[in-house]
């Protein structure tokens, strides 16, 4: 039997070798996702993620080298004890870096076929474009977007600039999850991009304060609730100015999960109560577009979900909130914001551009070329999203045809990006 020092060193040597080798293995990014999956990313996006991950792995490898050096130079039990602590830290770091890598690998690997690749790339472009349209005017760079597919009802975003699992690096891209059911109506992408824009500009915080202050006349607690919902209200408004009624109809379909869902109020949840969210969307349409199909949507919603059946926990808040919707729309869309350089949201992105009449006139003016010409698909991508969303919302009997049309132009948009 060896002495305790030798025994400890033996175990440590094996473990350090094991974790070092594991870290080295992370180096080959083609082990994470196949070359074809990497190639499915737009050139800049692929390059950006690869550079980021390579740096994370390089850092880990350097730490592995330090660990190995520390072990080699450890000469006492106390030294070995320090090395052991360092090893435990390294294990944690390894797992965190691995989580970061796995996140991107999973996201990239959802581009399983040419079609998925094309649709995902189109989603990348749509969400990025929605951000540049506002951030360019504010002189702020818009992050590249990586869209990935997942199960579930709602989309989500891992914002660019946030610290990642490995705790040493920040997310280089806006990673947006789009759900399968919404792949052919991805207005939710724009909602998520709105979160990123709010993060970059500080809009949510400012909107929250504005709601709190401007709704102060409301009964106790109501303004606070609306202020707490500011991040989601901001994102909904961002979706609206870019895609108009399509975003409202799409929201309706996602949150229409029965009374328990529609009336649910969870203090601290940044999402407004679904009942109010849909009505707020309809109110946006009404204020900017006048009468239209959103009136029927709101009518159906309120008939389906009578406030009289709302649970006690949310009933009061709901009833007191409905009369505020007009003002909430005003504050959110028309109020000048410091985050927007003293301009309002609609001064930066005019919702008139996606008014149903405007969209139909666009279709009339450009004819078939609107859906086939790369010039129009590229320059009018967001309005195409709004238009096909509008058709889907208003021409339910032609859904199959609209989905086909949507998929075709999205594939053209997605296929027309440079491969990595």
């Amino acid at each position, binding site marked *: 039997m060896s002495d305790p020092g030798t025994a400890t060193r033996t175990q440590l040597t094996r473990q350090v070798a094991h974790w070092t080798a594991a870290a080295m293995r992370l180096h080959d990014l083609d082990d994470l996702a196949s070359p074809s999956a990497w190639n499915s990313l737009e*050139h*800049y996006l692929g*390059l950006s993620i690869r550079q980021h991950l390579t740096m994370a792995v390089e850092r880990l490898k350097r730490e592995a080298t330090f660990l190995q050096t520390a072990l080699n130079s450890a000469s006492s039990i106390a030294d070995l004890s320090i090395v052991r602590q360092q090893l435990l830290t390294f294990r944690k770091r390894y797992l965190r870096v691995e989580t970061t890598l796995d996140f991107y690998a999973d996201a990239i690997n959802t581009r399983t076929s*040419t079609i998925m*690749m*094309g649709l995902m790339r189109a989603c990348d472009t749509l969400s990025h474009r929605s951000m*540049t349209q506002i951030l*360019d005017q504010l002189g702020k*760079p*818009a992050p590249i977007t990586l869209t990935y597919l997942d199960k579930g009802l709602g989309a989500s975003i891992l914002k660019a600039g946030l610290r990642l699992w490995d705790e040493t690096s920040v997310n280089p891209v806006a990673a947006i999850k789009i759900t399968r059911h919404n792949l052919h109506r991805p207005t939710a992408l724009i909602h998520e991009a709105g979160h990123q824009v709010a993060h970059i500009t500080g809009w949510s915080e400012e909107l929250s304060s504005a709601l709190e202050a401007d709704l102060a006349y409301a009964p106790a607690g109501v303004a606070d609730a609306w202020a707490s919902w500011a991040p989601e209200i901001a994102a909904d408004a961002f979706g609206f100015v870019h895609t108009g009624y399509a975003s409202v109809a799409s929201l309706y379909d996602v949150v229409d999960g029965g009374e328990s869902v529609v009336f649910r109020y969870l203090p601290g949840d940044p999402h407004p109560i679904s009942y109010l969210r849909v009505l707020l969307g309809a109110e946006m349409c009404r204020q900017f577009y006048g009468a239209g199909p959103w009136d029927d949507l709101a009518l159906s919603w309120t008939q389906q979900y009578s406030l009289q059946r709302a649970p006690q926990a949310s009933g009061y808040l709901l009833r007191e909130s409905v009369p505020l919707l007009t003002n909430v729309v005003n504050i959110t869309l028309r109020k000048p914001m410091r985050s927007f350089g003293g301009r309002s949201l609609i001064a930066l992105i005019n919702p008139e551009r996606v008014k149903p009449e405007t969209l139909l006139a666009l279709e009339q*003016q*450009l*004819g*078939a*070329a609107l859906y*086939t*010409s*790369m*010039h*129009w698909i*590229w*320059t009018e991508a967001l309005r195409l999203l709004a238009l096909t969303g509008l058709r889907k919302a208003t021409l339910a009997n032609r859904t199959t045809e609209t989905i086909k049309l949507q998929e075709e132009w999205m594939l*053209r948009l997605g*296929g*027309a*990006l*440079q*491969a990595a």
Partner: protein
Amino acid sequence: MSLREFVDGGNSMKNQAPFLNVSSFAMEEVSREILETSTPPGSPFLSIYESEEAGGLIDPETEEYVQFLNELYDEEFNETLYGLASEAAALYEVRFTHEYRDPGIVGYEAERFLNQHFAPLVAEAEAMLGSLATELSQRDPKSLSEYEIGEIVDRYKPSIEPIPNFEDFLRKLKKTFRKVAGKAVNLAKKGISAVAMAGLNKLIPLVKPLLKRVIESAIGKLPSQLQPIAKKLAERLPFLKEFEEDNYSTGNSPLSESAGLSEISQIQYEFDRHIADVLFAHTEIEQDLEVSQVLTEQQAPEIYPLAELDNARDHFIESLQQMKEGEDPTPHIENFIPAILPALRIGIRLMGRKKVVNFLAKFLGRLIQKFVGPQHTQALSQAIVDAGLRLIQLEATFEDESHAASSAVAATVEETVRRVATLPDYILENQELLEGFALEAFEQAATANLPQVLSEEIYRKRPDLGEARNLRGAWIMMPRGRQKRYKKFSRKIPTRITPHKVSAVETFEGIPLEEFLEEKLGIEPGEEVEAIVHLYESIPGTRLTDISRLEENNPGLSTQDGYEQLHPLTTNASGILLGEPQLGRDTDSRYLVDPYTTEVGQRFYYLEIPGKRPLMASAMPGRAKVRSATKSRVIFDFPKNEIKFLLFLSEIRAQEIAVKLRQHTHVGVVMANLQKPIERGLRRALTDSSGKLKIIHEAVTPDQWVNALQRLPSLVPQVLLGRLNEWILKGLSDYLKQHSGEFIQAAADTADGVTLLITVENPPGLPQLRQVLKGRGISLPSLKMSGSTPDVKIKVTPGYAHE
């Protein structure tokens, strides 16, 4: 005055030659006898009339042969061959050029490897030609129409995986075959060749030699017997020789060594000529002989000028680094110059002039002596570091800095030699003139390649010696390592792109930069953007694809089509974009026609515009291609007595017009949009020699297209320009009034852009022009092209259709 006298001369002379005005510059006896004597080229030019009187009439078959060569030659095929060569060059660089080895051995291995790489393509191409030839040979040529041939050819589907470059090659080869089959049928019908149809099958073995040439070009192997087509045809057509010699006297001839014909063009010329030789052979035995001759020509000598230059440059740089102060570098230069010359197309002129070469070695030895030795090298490296070496070589080590200094000296020597090689014979043959011009060449080379090494006072007095002194940059040989492929300016220059600035700058094909930025990068007209300008310069062997491939830290450039983002840095472009006109290099207009033909020393720039990326169009499924810009092409088809004008409208322009047509806008407004590209395309092709022009004529070969119109009286191209502009605008205006739906439909297609094929049929004066191009004297009034109004036919096609 001799060099010695020049150097020893009064202060005023020293002041005029600052690089000579150094104490370390020792005097050297330079013999006045060093220069060889040679007689000036004679003037064997014979007038056409003499030629005809001497019985030199051309037979119709030969004329048909030349016409066919013109029909066959396709500038688009150059793009395909360039793509294949670039692909091969990238594979060669990655696998074979890392360590020092004998170029012959490396070349042999590389050729074998690349042959394997292209084997599936060769097999598929041969199978395709075989299958099509067999199918056509079973048909009666008398009843076979062009349309049927087209159908048969289009029906053929390649069996291999559609790799972009391979697929493109097969498509272009199909197109070539279609023309060949059409001609074979035509020859059979006319009774010129009874075996022309059988000859289609004989084309199969010509594919491999074509790709072999492409591979040789990619690995920098000196091809055998690549000669301008006119020279080869001179025996068949004596008058071609006369035109060549006439051009030679004006320095425009492809036969002249300064012609700088693109290697890729020559490869296609050669392939076309082989095809024509087989097709025009009278018996099957003659056809077999033509084919076997092609295969024999393939035995190229094992000479690799670019690899030899890489090695020699590397040795030279190493030698410079090991030299001590005061040591004479002449022996090293003597070893270096013989490697520089074969790598320059122009260099062959000096190879036979040993005395000039010896003079240059001694001359340069003296001049660069003050830049060698540890002390001088260190000073030079410091100047290069100050000029921004680390901006482009982020992790530059001390060795890299020292290497950069010696590398700059080597570049100065190379450029001086290149500049001297371009000097006309009368200077090379006159010692005094040579000395003066060689010194000027050195000064220009040193100005371009060395950082600022002279005193401020000298730069004040001689501003021509300080290139872009405000930018304080230096040209660095790139990439790091032994093989250098291009030079890069150490500074990235921020600039603001304004509509006013870019309106006066043109890029390749004469496309206004303003239009390029709008149509390829989506910059709105009137939009102002911040850009970072990256500058590059070509060295022997540089392809623009090399620059884009090796600029891997530059995401906008390092993509497959990235080279299309490089623009020629002329003095005009440099002056406007950078405020430093002297950083630009003006070049012969033929190097501005497309990015496939560039010359050593030519400079380019890339505009990095944050947030802007190339606009893409779908190509093959799952693949994308950078969108094309608006461009045009003029085709004179003398046998058919018609002029074609192909106008490709970019997707943006096409949609702009389609919207106006849908809105029933007045046709005059639509025509105002079209007038600009039409006028520009015609002007560049007819009067500026830098546009896309094709001439199908019995006395013009494809390599003469650009200069052929110079045979016409000087007023004629202007008249032609005016008339064509008028006919086309009128014809197009009528067409759009009556058939706007056709344009709208084409614009609604998913293809990128729309092509308008405008054919001017039987234009007055064209038959007379045909005669003038053959050297026949025609009265000027008959060349006014006035009289009847020709028919103008218009066809609209979605996407790019160039013929």
